């Protein structure tokens, strides 16, 4: 039989193990690994300073935490599992040095947001916040209508976000931008050479397939009939392209190949993102074949 006082000491040891683990695994790296130094390596390999959050971004971060966005959206890009290709460059410790508490998250019910900044325009974000399903068919995100003022019909007016709504979008636009404009490493050069492509011959089957792709991914902004009047269009500037009028960049002689390039790279300065990573080449051609049917 072990003596009682010895047992007391052993219980103390049990608690001690907790502190041992804390000290070795967590306190030691916290104090000696210098994670909280606000410096990161930018896309050109230079060490750059991370700027603190502006008051507005800070408010947006509070909204993000308050709404528990971190329950469904993670905020770190891993060097594995297609993360880099899907979201952007791998996360660095310095990028989080102003986050208290952290918002890493443990579940991706929605996509990772670590590199969300600059991916979409503010207008797209407002439209999406008010009605995610209109922008992305099949999305299960709640409609955050209470971040918008109501119009006369009592619906959320996506052109009039509240202060908190604006702050939230400002925060989202800040995310992952500390490493520089990684989406356009050479600047936005319209003359950058790309491989030439040739449009395949469109078939009826492609048009049908294109409709599916269009309804799921494009109708939120461009509208179901292609008139540029989707649910989010009101918040967007410049407005989404009207395919019925066929008001393309070169309205008279818009080539399928030009549209293909737009689909690939997006339109700088607008809400139009590049679809290279989310639509396959054949899907992109199909959707073009479908868009072409809108013209009156």
């Amino acid at each position, binding site marked *: 039989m072990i003596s009682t006082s010895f047992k007391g000491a052993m219980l103390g040891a049990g608690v001690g193990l907790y502190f041992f683990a804390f000290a070795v695994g967590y306190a030691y790296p916290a104090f000696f690994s210098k*994670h909280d130094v606000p410096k990161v390596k930018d896309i050109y390999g230079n060490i750059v300073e991370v700027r603190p959050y502006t008051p507005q971004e800070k408010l947006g971060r509070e909204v993000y935490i308050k709404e528990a966005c971190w329950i469904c959206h993670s905020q770190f890009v891993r060097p594995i599992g297609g993360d880099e290709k899907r979201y952007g460059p791998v996360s660095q410790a310095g990028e989080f040095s102003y986050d208290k508490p952290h918002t890493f998250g443990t579940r991706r019910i929605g996509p990772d947001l670590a590199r969300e900044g600059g991916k979409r325009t503010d207008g797209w974000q407002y439209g999406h916040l008010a009605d995610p399903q209109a922008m992305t068919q099949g999305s299960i995100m709640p409609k955050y*209508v209470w971040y918008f003022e109501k119009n006369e019909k009592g619906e959320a007016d996506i052109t009039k976000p509240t202060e908190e709504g604006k702050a939230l979008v400002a925060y989202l636009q800040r995310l992952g931008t500390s490493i520089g404009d990684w989406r356009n490493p050479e600047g936005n050069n319209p003359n950058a050479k790309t491989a030439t492509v040739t449009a395949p011959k469109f078939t009826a089957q492609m048009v049908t397939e294109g409709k599916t792709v269009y309804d799921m991914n494009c109708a939120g902004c461009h509208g179901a009939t292609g008139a540029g009047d989707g649910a989010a269009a009101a918040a967007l500037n410049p407005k989404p392209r009207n395919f019925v009028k066929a008001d393309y960049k070169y309205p008279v002689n818009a080539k399928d190949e030009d549209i293909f390039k737009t689909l690939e790279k997006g339109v700088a300065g607008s809400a139009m993102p590049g679809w290279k990573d989310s*639509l396959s080449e054949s899907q992109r051609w199909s959707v073009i074949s479908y868009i072409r049917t809108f013209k009156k």
Partner: protein
Amino acid sequence: MAVVAEKVAINQKEEVVDKKLVRLWFYVSFFWLIVSMTFGGLVSIKFNYPDFLGYVPYFAMPRMRIAHLGGVALGWFTTAAIGMAYYMVPKLTGIKMKYPNLGYYLLYAWVPITLIGQWALLSGYNQGVEVGEWPIWIDIPVVGVFALITNQLFMTIAARKEKHIYVSLWYLTAGFTWASINYVVGNLINPYFFTGVDNAAIQGFYLHSVVGLWITPMGTAMLYYFLPIITKNPVYSHKLSMLGFWGLALFYPLTGAHHYLFSPIDTWVQTIAIMASMMLILPVWSVITNQIGTMKGKWHMLSSHIEVKFMVLGAVFYVTTCFQGPTQALRSMQEIVHFTDWVVGHAHLAIYGVFTMWTWSGMYYVWPKLTGRELYSQKLAGWHFWLSLFGFAIMALTLWGAGLVQGGMLSLSANVAFIDTVRAISPFWMIRSFGGWMMILGAVLFVYNMVMTAIVGKPITDSEAIA
């Protein structure tokens, strides 16, 4: 050294348990069990019908999701575990609890604390700490409650009649002490003093310590207390139980960083976490070996005793969860299953499949003694068991399936749009909801059975039987 809890329990002539106090704690836990599980059920519907319950801030899916978690962890399990402690500690020490009124005062504090804490989450006051969402102004009274109970526990043990400290008491004292400290670290210190990556690492440590150093010790204490009493067998091996305890104490706190593998947290910290996770197989399986050994010659009770059914089912899930947990902490598994429903299934396997089952087992045994009445309906208890088992099996399997589908789609091809994975697993979520509502129905039957036992159950005349 085959000291048996049952010997302590049966030899007592004097009634040491404050039965009313334990009953009251259990009633509060019943309330939170139903409310929190219903929240989970409602959230799961929102996965398929995002517009369900309208566009009300209070019922936004993420807010309800954290309220489900807070309600289950603190409202249901913690309340039930405290009630269990007020039953087990007097039995194991042979004396009444010190400060006999304290338990009542704490309960009167605990009810508003849990209500306000849950209301705060729905109203948008959360401090952004996973598994510690309650805001800081409600965390402080929570720490107060934990600290006072821990102190009461130590005082009672110091004055005990029964010299030997049974393994359940080890787990209880250590669990309450760890929980008090851990709650302070995770809720009061970390979110306000550490930034970014360090904050994440410590939060992982806190998060997993809630499971490993609070929920697990409480559940294991119940297992070691109730199993020998119910089966009237001595604990198979006292040494093995000590091995389990010390293994838990050594390895569990080191595992936290496995929640953030491949993050900017130092790689060596992640590696230690993975190793410690693997090593957890040791203490957990020692507990299970002990349980199976204790069941020796008593397996026929499985067919007749509802508490044995739940105890054994919990053990089966414990083996599963503590094989699944360590393996999913491996980097190669994480690449695919992390961030997916696989992990959600794992969490439910531990909290529902193991510890809730064991708590129910204990409650089925204790409740007739607390109320002095026989269980109202064995049939309802049977329905509770089978609904829980099948409901959970449906839910867990679909969650794991969904996790593999989504994880596979995302990691095997970078050309899949995220939304396509959501569309792909949407049918899984539908089935998951179905299983979830079976579980809720089972829990409702359980609470109904318990309440009816207290009201109209057949009185037990044999005074030995209610001791």
